[in-house]
């Protein structure tokens, strides 16, 4: 019994310590002397890896989600004769919620897991050690460009996701189900507000990006350098960052839209 309690305590202490290590890693990578000139090409390369290579899955998912929303929304709205409100319904759900959240979940699965595995393997094959012995800080050289690339890519992916989703909604709602194209756009325009809806979505996606990339790089950097350790770290990245995204989404939504 005493061992059991001691076990709980030890597990919690380990969690706090690991959070501390993660914070130190973040500081080491971001705060300490950013070498802009050298890091820009590296960051561009990482934007290619985490951003451009996630583009296809984002566009396809955005298109389908927009189409499904239009289909579902139409069947409900037509019952009230309010199918003209299809545009704002699709646009608002995408901009406020689905855009940032679904992009973040896809990003965690597509890019986050890849980041963890890549960094974990670099650790296992002594590449990180070897950088350190070459007097190059792996935090700055490996972690920092990936952090920045994720922070830059995610809002862009979110914008693309929402835009494609709205077009997908148009495709189904207007071209297939026969909602008037003019009212689809104009009611959307009179409802959607740039600051409240679009900017808040971008802010959400920035927060999600930060959390996902932080978790992904830390899990890779802190992984046990064996094949089992890396696979465990990759799983943890996806699970933890998905949960973090959903939890944070609630908090952010409450802050942004809750009180009016």
């Amino acid at each position, binding site marked *: 019994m005493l061992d059991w309690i001691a076990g709980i305590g030890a597990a919690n202490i380990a969690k706090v310590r690991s959070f501390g290590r993660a914070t130190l890693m973040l500081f080491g990578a971001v705060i300490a002397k950013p070498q802009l000139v050298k890091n820009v*090409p590296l960051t*561009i*390369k990482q*934007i*290619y890896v985490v*951003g*451009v290579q996630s*583009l296809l899955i984002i566009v396809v998912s955005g298109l389908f989600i927009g189409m499904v929303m239009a289909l579902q929304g139409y069947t409900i709205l037509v019952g*009230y*004769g*309010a199918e*003209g*409100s299809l545009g704002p319904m699709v*646009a608002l759900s995408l*901009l406020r919620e689905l855009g940032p959240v679904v992009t973040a979940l896809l990003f965690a699965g597509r890019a986050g897991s890849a980041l963890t595995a890549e960094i974990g393997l670099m650790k296992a094959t002594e590449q990180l050690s070897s950088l350190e012995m070459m007097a190059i800080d792996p935090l700055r050289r490996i972690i920092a460009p990936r952090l920045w690339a994720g922070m830059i*890519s995610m*809002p*862009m*992916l979110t*914008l*693309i996701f*929402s*835009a*494609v989703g*709205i077009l997908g909604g148009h495709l189904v709602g207007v071209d297939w189900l026969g909602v008037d194209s003019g009212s689809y*756009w*104009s*009611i*959307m*325009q*009179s*409802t*959607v*507000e*740039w600051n409240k*809806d*679009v900017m808040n979505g971008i802010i959400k996606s920035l927060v999600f990006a930060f959390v996902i990339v932080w978790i992904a790089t830390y899990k890779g950097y802190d992984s046990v350098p064996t094949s089992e350790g890396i696979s465990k770290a990759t799983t943890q990245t996806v699970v933890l960052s998905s949960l973090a995204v959903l939890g944070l989404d609630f908090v952010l939504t409450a802050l942004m839209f809750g009180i009016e």
Partner: protein
Amino acid sequence: MKSRKAELLVGVFVLLAIAAGLMLALKVANQTMSGKGETYVLKAKFDNIGGLKVRSAVKVGGVTVGRVDSITLSSNDFTPIVSMSIAKKYDKFPETSSVSILTSGLLGEQYIGLQPGFSMDGIKDLADGDFVEDTKSALVLEDLIGQFLFSKK
């Protein structure tokens, strides 16, 4: 060579994102109407604004000419004051114009309908900051039902 391809694709990626952002700005959120210097302000007092919101449309015969800027409560007589920004190119509304709060469809958005009045000598055009005197409030469903029941009895 490989890095050049990556740079190119990142460029394409950024352009795509900018295009998406522009589309959201212009086509979805319609940023153009809020440009400065192109609008002037009209105000109107209503008894009840119903479901009118900031950024609701102001329409003349179905044509959007402006948007609701702000909704405040007058501290003297506790009636709502709606201020609307109207595009500069529509600046010839006579003082006799009236505004009413209308609904598009049964459950649709509420908007302000501006009904231009007659113009003749001695009647000036509405200028920046003027109040539109003739207003008609929103229909509140509960009042309507109440009236209906009352008149039946």
